[in-house]
C-alpha cells in the first residue's frame, strides 16, 4: 500500500500548483491531471481518482476523478442511468469500484467496509426501520455506539427539535407523511455525527411543495452543521439551488464540475448545455474569423482561435434571444439579426415561450418575460425580428 501511494504521489505532485485557480470549472478530461496530492491538503475532505466500474460489458463509471472540500455541498447531477447513484454507493462503501481510489482526509478508503467510513446515508425510499418508533429509529446508530441512555435521550431530543419532529417520537414510519419520514431518516443519519452525509435522491419521492420546503431545510441544516454533503439528484433545479458545486455526469463520465453559475452559463459541452435548462443548439462550420456558417445563414460570434472549417455547435439560450418588431431592427456589428415567424406560444407563468421559425428554416425557442409580453405583437403567425448578441452565443467544437 505504501509503495503504491508514494508512486502515485510523485506523479501527481507536479500538478498541484495549478489547482486553485482553475478548480471548479475544470472539465473531466483535465481533472485527473489536476487532482492534488490526496494525502496532503487538510481542507480536501474527499478525493476520488480514476474510479471505474462495470457490470459485465456495461460500463457504469469510467475514470471518475474529483475532489470535495470540507463543509462543501456537492450534487451529482445527471440523467437516470448515468452512474451517479453507483458513484454515491462507492463513496458509502456499498458498491466496490473495479479500479481507482477514494481518499478521505488523506486516507485510502476505497475498499473499506461502510461501517468503518463514518458516513451517514439517506435514501429516496427513506428506508426507516418499519418496526421501530421515530425515537428508536433516530437512536439506532447511537445504541450501536453504546451511548448511555440519558445521553441518547438528549441527543435524540436535540435532533427532534432541529428537524421539527416534536410530538412524533412514538409514532411509526407508517403513521408519518413522506416529508416527515425523510426528516426522520435525516435525523437518524445525522445522529452519529458522521463526517460525510450522503443523500441518494432524498427528495424525489415527495410531492412538489414538500420537496421545495425540505430542500430549503436541508440546505439550512447543512450550513448550520457545516457537514460535508454529497447529494445525488436528476433534478437540475434542485442541484442548482442546493449545491456549492455540481458534478454533472453522463453515461458513466463526468461532463463538467463547477458551481451552479458556471454549469449554467459556461457549459463545457453541448450535453451540459442541453441538460441544464432549455437550449437551442445549432450545427455550423467556422467560415471566417468570428463568423459561423449554418445551413442557410451565418451567425456572428466569438470563434476564439478555431481555424476556418472547424465544425462547431452553437448554444443560444432562449432568454438571450430578443423578439423585436420588424420595423425596429437595430443595426450593430455585435448583434445578429434574423427574420422569423411565431408558430406556437406557451404560457409558462413567469415567462412566455415562443416557438419561432426563421426565414432560413431554423426552429428556435425564445423566452419573453411576462413584463415584455405584448399579445398584439407576440401572436402566432406574426412576423418578427430576432436579435442575438454575439457574446451570448456559446460555441462548442465538435
Amino acid at each position: 500500500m505504501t509503495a503504491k501511494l508514494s508512486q502515485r504521489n510523485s506523479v501527481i505532485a507536479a500538478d498541484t500548483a495549478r489547482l486553485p485557480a482553475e478548480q471548479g470549472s475544470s472539465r473531466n478530461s483535465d481533472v485527473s491531471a489536476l487532482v492534488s496530492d490526496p494525502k496532503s491538503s487538510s481542507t480536501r475532505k474527499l478525493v476520488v481518482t480514476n474510479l471505474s466500474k462495470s457490470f459485465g460489458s456495461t460500463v457504469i463509471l469510467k475514470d471518475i476523478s474529483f475532489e470535495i472540500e470540507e463543509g462543501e455541498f456537492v450534487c451529482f447531477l445527471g440523467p437516470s442511468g448515468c452512474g451517479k447513484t453507483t458513484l454515491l454507493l462507492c463513496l458509502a462503501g456499498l458498491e466496490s469500484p473495479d479500479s481507482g481510489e477514494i481518499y478521505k482526509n488523506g486516507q485510502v478508503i476505497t475498499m473499506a467496509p461502510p461501517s468503518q467510513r463514518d458516513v451517514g446515508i439517506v435514501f429516496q425510499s427513506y428506508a426507516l426501520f418499519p418496526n421501530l418508533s421515530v425515537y428508536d429509529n433516530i437512536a439506532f446508530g447511537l445504541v450501536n455506539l453504546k451511548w448511555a441512555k440519558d445521553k441518547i435521550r438528549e441527543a435524540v431530543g436535540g435532533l427532534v427539535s432541529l428537524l421539527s419532529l416534536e410530538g412524533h417520537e412514538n409514532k411509526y414510519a407508517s403513521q408519518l407523511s413522506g416529508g416527515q419520514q425523510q426528516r426522520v431518516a435525516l435525523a437518524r443519519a445525522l445522529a452519529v455525527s458522521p463526517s460525510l452525509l450522503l443523500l441518494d435522491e432524498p427528495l424525489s419521492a415527495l410531492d412538489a411543495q414538500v420537496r421545495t420546503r425540505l430542500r430549503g431545510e436541508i440546505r439550512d441544516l447543512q450550513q448550520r452543521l457545516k457537514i460535508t454533503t454529497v447529494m445525488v439528484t436528476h433534478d437540475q433545479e434542485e442541484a442548482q439551488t442546493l449545491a456549492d458545486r455540481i458534478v454533472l455526469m453522463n453515461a458513466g463520465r463526468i461532463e463538467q464540475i463547477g458551481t451552479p453559475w458556471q454549469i449554467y452559463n459556461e457549459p463545457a459541452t453541448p450535453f451540459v448545455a442541453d441538460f441544464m435548462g432549455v437550449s437551442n443548439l445549432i450545427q455550423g462550420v467556422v467560415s471566417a474569423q468570428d463568423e459561423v456558417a449554418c445551413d442557410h445563414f451565418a451567425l456572428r460570434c466569438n470563434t476564439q482561435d478555431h481555424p476556418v472549417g472547424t465544425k462547431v455547435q452553437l448554444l443560444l439560450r432562449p432568454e438571450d434571444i430578443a423578439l423585436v418588431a420588424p420595423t425596429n431592427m437595430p443595426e450593430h456589428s455585435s448583434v445578429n439579426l434574423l427574420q422569423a415567424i411565431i408558430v406556437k406560444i406557451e404560457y409558462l407563468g413567469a415567462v412566455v415561450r415562443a416557438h419561432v421559425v426563421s426565414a432560413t428554416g431554423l426552429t428556435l425557442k425564445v423566452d419573453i418575460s411576462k413584463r415584455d409580453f405584448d399579445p398584439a405583437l407576440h401572436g402566432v403567425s406574426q412576423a418578427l425580428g430576432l436579435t442575438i448578441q454575439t457574446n451570448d452565443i456559446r460555441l462548442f467544437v465538435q
Partner: protein
Amino acid sequence: MSTQSLNAAGVGLFTRGKPQIMERSDWLVRWVCVAYCVAALCTIILPVGALFLRSLNNANGAYVGLQNYLTYFGTSALFDSFLNSLLVSLVTATIVVPMAFAYAYGLLRTCMPCKSFFRGVALIPLLIPGVLKAIALVYLFGNQGLLREWLFGHPLYGPIGIVGASVIWTFPFAVLIMLTALQHVDQRLYQAAAVLKTSAWRTFLHVTWPSCRYGVTTAFLVVTVSVFTDFGIAKVIGGDFRVLATDIYKEVVGQQNFEMGAVISVMLLIPAILVFLLERRVASKQVAQFTGRSLPYTPKPSAWRDGVFLGWCIAVTVFIASVLGMAQFASLVKFWPYNLSLTFAHYSFEIEGVGWMNFSNSLWMATLAASFGTLIIFIGAYVVEKARRDLGLRKTLQMLMLLPMAIPGLVLGLAYLIFINTPGNPAGWLYGGMAILVISTVTHLYSVPHLTCLTALKGLDREIESVGLSLNTSVARMLTQVTLPVCLAALLDVWLYMFLCAMTTLSAVIFLYSSDTKLASVAVIHIDETGRVASAAAMAMLLVYVCLAVRLAHHLIAQKILRKFQPWRTS
C-alpha cells in the same frame, strides 16, 4: 504497473475476479451459504445420486448399466402403471382446475355472501390426511357405501376412487393458486373494456383469461404432479389398479427389490423434474402483469351471477363436509353397515404394532420438524437474500433450495433409505431414529416455506440493510431488532405450514420409520391393511383434530403476538 491493477490484484486474491468490499457480515453470510450448500449436498444431491446408482446395480451390488431399465420397460405390468399414473393425474387435474377456478371466481369476482367462510372451507382438505379422504369415499361409495348407486355399478376401488379422493385432496392447492391469479387484474382494464362497449365474452377472452392463464397452467401442473407422485390415496383405494407410487412400495417393502424400486423412482422423478422446470418457466413469465399502480378489481352485485356461484360454493362445501362427516361417523360406528350404534372402541387401537404411541410420535415429529425447519429455512432464506457479494453462490443455493419441490416424497424417502444404509456412511446411526424422519420431512417440505420467507424478507427494503451497515450495526442486532420482528408473521405461517404437513406426511417417511418411531400417518396405512378400516379412520381423525386445534391456536396466538410485537401494523 498502475495502481489500479495492483489494487485489483491484492484484493482479487480473496474474492476472485473483481475486488469486492467485504463487511464482517459479508464473510459470515458467505460461510453460512457454503454450509447450506454442503447441507443440501448431503440431504438432497447425494441421496438422490445414491438412488440413481442403485438403479444401475443388480441385487448383488454389481454394476449392470441400464439392464434394470430394460427389464422395466419389458415388463408390461410395470410400464402400465406409468400410464395409469399419468391417466389419473391428468383426469384429476382436468376436473379440479375448472372446479377451483369457478370457486375462486365466486370468491373474488362476485358479491356472494359469506366469502370468508367459503374461503376457509376450501382450505379444510389441507387438514385431512389424503388417506382419510380415500377411507371416507369407501364409506360413501364403496361396496357397502351409503351412496354406492351413484356410481352405476362401477367399482370405486381403482381409478374412480383415486381420482375422487385426489380431487378433494388437491382442491385447496388449486384454489389457492387461482385466488392469487384472479386477484391480480387491474380494474381499469375492465373499465376500459366497458367504455369500448366490449361484450362479456370478449372481455373474458381478452382481459380475464390473459391475466389468469399462467395461474391456470400452474394449477394444472401442480395438481398433475401431486397426484402423479402421491402414494397414500392409491394405496388405500387403488385396489388392483397399479400406479408408480404403489409399485415402488411393493417392490421395496413387499419384495425387498431395491433396484427395481430405484428404477421406478427414477421414472417418477423425471416427469416430476420436467414439470418443475416447466412450472418455473411459467412462473417467471407471470411477473409484471400486475404492478403497484394497478387498481384491484371490485365486483358489482348481479343477482343471477352471485346466485350461481353461491350455489356452486355451497355444493363444494356440502361435499367436503360430507366427506369429513362420513370419516368421523365411520370411526365411531360399531360395525358398518350392520350395527350403526356409536362407540369409541375404534380409538383404543388394539392392533399389533399400532397404538396411541404412533400419535404421540407424530406430534413430537411434527413439532420438531416445524420448529427446526422454520429456524433453518428462515436462516437459509436470509443468507440467500443477503449474499450480495457472492452472486454465483447465491444462485446455486437458491436453486438447491427449490429442488425439493421437484422431488416426490416417496423418491426422497427411498433415496434416504438407500443412502443411509450405504456401507461406510458416517450418518448410518441416524437410521431408525426420529432425527432421520425430521430431516427427511424438513427437506421434503423445504421449498414452499423458503419462498414464503424470501417474500417476507423482500418486503424489507434493500436500502434498510445499507442503512444498518452505515450505522455500524452488528448482524445480530439487525436480525433481532429489525429483520425478525418484521418477518414474524411469515415465520408463524411457516411454522404452521410445516406442522400441518409434517402431521399428515406419509410418502417421505414410509421407508424410514422404525417400530419405535412409527408415525400415525403410517399407522393408518397399516391398520387399513389389516382390514380394520374404522380404526384407520379413527387414527386419521386424531390427526385431523390436532391439525384443526393447532390451526385455531395459531390463529389466536398469532393475532396476540403480532399485536404485541408488530404494533406498527395495526395502526
